[in-house]
């Protein structure tokens, strides 16, 4: 100051009121920017997660397909096993029934199960016992039945019975199974 005894007070349009308003707006802006940055970050992480999840979904879908194929295979295996089990049960029942058919006076030495037939080897005291007690039930089951006899050392007759079913009936049985 060249001419005055005192210095002038500092003049500024930024009064305390204006400072408060500016501070308020500044804080608001900072909060807005922070929110915007937070949202950007969240958006980025969300997009990243989305990509990850999408790739995981694809991966899982592939896995599901594989597993579905495995399930189908296992189900087929199961069905097959059940079929085999049933067949075996049927076979077991058939064999049991077959042996039930055989009377006590006739002794079987060998039985051969064929796909459409049955060959039995055994020994019978005589032809009548065989004809009445074994041939009759066999004929009710099989369509064609041939039996040949030859004498054993003890005077009994050894026999070979060959029994066959018709082809059409055989197919029906397959379908039933």
């Amino acid at each position, binding site marked *: *100051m*060249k*001419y*005055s*005894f*005192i210095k*002038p*007070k500092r*003049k*500024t*349009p*930024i*009064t305390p009121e204006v400072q408060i308003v500016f501070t308020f707006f500044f804080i608001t802006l900072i909060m807005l920017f922070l929110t915007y940055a937070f949202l950007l970050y969240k958006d980025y992480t969300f997009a990243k997660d989305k990509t990850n999840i999408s790739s995981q979904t694809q991966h899982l879908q592939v896995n599901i397909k594989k597993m579905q194929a495995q399930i189908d295979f296992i189900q087929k295996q199961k069905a097959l096993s059940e079929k085999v089990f049933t067949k075996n049960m049927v076979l077991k029942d058939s064999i049991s029934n077959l042996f039930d058919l055989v009377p006590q006076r006739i002794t079987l030495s060998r039985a051969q199960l064929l796909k459409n037939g049955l060959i039995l080897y055994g020994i019978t005291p005589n032809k009548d016992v065989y004809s009445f007690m074994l041939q009759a039930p066999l004929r009710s089951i099989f369509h064609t039945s041939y039996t040949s006899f030859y004498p054993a050392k003890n005077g009994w007759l050894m026999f070979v019975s060959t029994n066959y079913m018709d082809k059409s009936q055989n197919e029906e049985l397959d379908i039933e199974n």
Partner: protein
Amino acid sequence: MLDKILESLYLKVFVNIVVQRTKTVVYIELRSKKEIIEEETVEFNTTALNNEMYNFIVRYAKESPYYYISIVDCSAFQGALPTCEKNKFSDYKDLSTAQYKCFENKWVFYTSKNDIYELEKKYEDVGLDFIFSPFVILQNFFKDKINGNLAMYVLVQDGFISVSMFENSQLLYAEHLEVLTGDDTDDILLNDEMDENMDLDEGIDLEDIDVEENDIEDLDDFGDIEDLDALEDIDEFSQSKDVEEELQESLDTLPEAEEDESFNEDYQRFTLIQSAVAHFYKDEKYESHFIENVYISDCIGVTSDLKKYLEEEMFFNVYVRQADLAVEVCELAKMELGL
């Protein structure tokens, strides 16, 4: 940088306060960067900051954050000294309780620290930015004359006169004097009369009067008066007249004295100037030269009597310039801000 940009966007408001004897003049100037937008002068019948004045100032101060309130210092203690060297201040005056400022490294103006404090306290509601000394105002008002030959410059305010002698921009002598009101002067006259009566009662003892030889020698110098009658000297006198100022003055005629009060005040001013000149001549501390021209900055409208007294009684060439003190204060405020 930001401050300067903001400053350029706003108007500047200059509030200039001049406190007179019974009233206060407030001059407002609203200024853009280039021109004056608005100016207004209002007088308030108070010497303190009352509500009316406060509201008026605040109304304008609210126009812009860049408002500057200036005031003229009216402290009775103030003055100016013809040196800027601190160690020489004590030769003239004790400035231990004063606040001073050096003007262009040539002379110093001062005032009382207490008066500055009181002034700031008085106007603390609006806040003062500048307090100017009348001597600085005087220097600025007569800056076209002050760098010339020796002359006396007088600033006439309501209630005060500031007398200064300048030669080539260097202050030689300065005095700030109070012009007393009519009632005050009556009191003084009464006191003088009482003193005289007391002296008369005591009588005059001639033996008490010392007639020193030096005084008689001084009287011998009157012989030189003959030289003054020489024609060459008279020519010098006529050459020292300021023709330009006379021309200007002829356009602004001074009012004639109408009332006794103004006569009384002008006479008081004359006596104060006379005593100041006598002090300047007599006091050996001051480098005294013969004063021929007197420039008066008239801020209140002095009558032609003052000029007449100075011309007839003291043989000065007197030039009176009308001035608006508030406007001059505003000019200084602008100069302070570099506008």
